[in-house]
C-alpha cells in the first residue's frame, strides 16, 4: 500500500487541517448559539476557561495551517505548467481540468472561488478566538458583540465548507500526485 508524497501532503492539507478546522468551527458555533439561550448564563471555571482558550487557539491555528499549506505547498503542484508538446496532462491538474469543457468549471469556478474564500475563514476565526478569550468580559456585557462574533464564525464555517467541497471534488477530478512514493504497509 503506497501513496505519493504530493497526494499525502494534499490529504493532510484537506482531510486533517481543513476538515478538523471545519469540525472545530462548527462546534464553536454550536457552543456560541447554545450559550445565547442559557437561562441566567453560565460561568466557566478557571480550568474551563483555559481549556476553551486552548480549543479556540488550536481551531484558529488549524485554519492557518490549512490555508498556508494549501497556498504555498499544494496549489503550486496543482497549477504547475506542463512542458510544451506534452499530451498526458495527468501530472498537471489545472491543465487537465481546463483541457475539457466538461471539467473546466471545476477550475474556473471551484478553484478560483476556493483559493480566495478559504482565507476568510482563519481571519474570522482568529478574531473570534481573540474576542472570546481576551474580551470575555465585554462579550458577557454586550450581547451585540457576541452576535457579531457569531456571524463571523458562521462565515468562517461557510467559507471553509466551500473550500472543502471544491477541494475534495477537484482532487477527485484531477488528483494532485507525484513525488516520491511513501510505502505505508508492505504487501505480502
Amino acid at each position, binding site marked *: 500500500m503506497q501513496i505519493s508524497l504530493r497526494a499525502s501532503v494534499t490529504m493532510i492539507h484537506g482531510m486533517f487541517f481543513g476538515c478538523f478546522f471545519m469540525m472545530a468551527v462548527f462546534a464553536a458555533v454550536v457552543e456560541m448559539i447554545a450559550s445565547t439561550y442559557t437561562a441566567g448564563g453560565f460561568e466557566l471555571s478557571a480550568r474551563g476557561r483555559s481549556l476553551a482558550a486552548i480549543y479556540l487557539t488550536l481551531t484558529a491555528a488549524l485554519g492557518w495551517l490549512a490555508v498556508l499549506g494549501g497556498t504555498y505547498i499544494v496549489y503550486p503542484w496543482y497549477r504547475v505548467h506542463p512542458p510544451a508538446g506534452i499530451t498526458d496532462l495527468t501530472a498537471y491538474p489545472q491543465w487537465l481540468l481546463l483541457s475539457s469543457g466538461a471539467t473546466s468549471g471545476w477550475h474556473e469556478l471551484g478553484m478560483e472561488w476556493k483559493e480566495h474564500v478559504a482565507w476568510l475563514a482563519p481571519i474570522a476565526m482568529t478574531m473570534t478566538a481573540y474576542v472570546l478569550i481576551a*474580551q470575555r468580559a465585554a462579550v458577557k456585557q454586550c450581547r451585540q458583540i457576541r452576535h*457579531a462574533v457569531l456571524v463571523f464564525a458562521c462565515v468562517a464555517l461557510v467559507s471553509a465548507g466551500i473550500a472543502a467541497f471544491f477541494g475534495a471534488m477537484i482532487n477527485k477530478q484531477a488528483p494532485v500526485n507525484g513525488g516520491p512514493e511513501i510505502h505505508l504497509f508492505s504487501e505480502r
Partner: protein
Amino acid sequence: MTEPEATIPNGPAAAAILSAGIGSCTLAVLAVASDGSKTLTHWLSFYPPSGSLSGVTSVAVVVWLAAWLVLARLWRHRTVNFSRISVLSFVLLAIALLLTFPPLADRLLRK
C-alpha cells in the same frame, strides 16, 4: 427596555471585529483587481509558484493586522458605538463574500 450602560470598554472587541472585516474585504478587492490587471498580477506574485494568490493574501493579512493594531490602540480604553461598527463590519464581510464568488467578479470585470 434599554440595555445597562457599558462599564467595560468595548473598543478592543470592536477593533478586532472591524479589522477582520477590513482584512476580508481587502483580500476580495485585491483578488478581483489582480484578476483584471496583468501588472497587478505580476506585482502580487510574491511567491511565483503560487502566482498572485501569494501577494493577494499576504497584503490582505498585513492590512488586517495593521488595521487591528491601529484600531486597538485608538480604542483601547474607549466604548464605541458598537451598532455602527458591527454594521460596517458586516457590510465589509458581505462585500468580501460576494467578490470572492468568481461569476460576480467576472461580471464586474466584464469578462
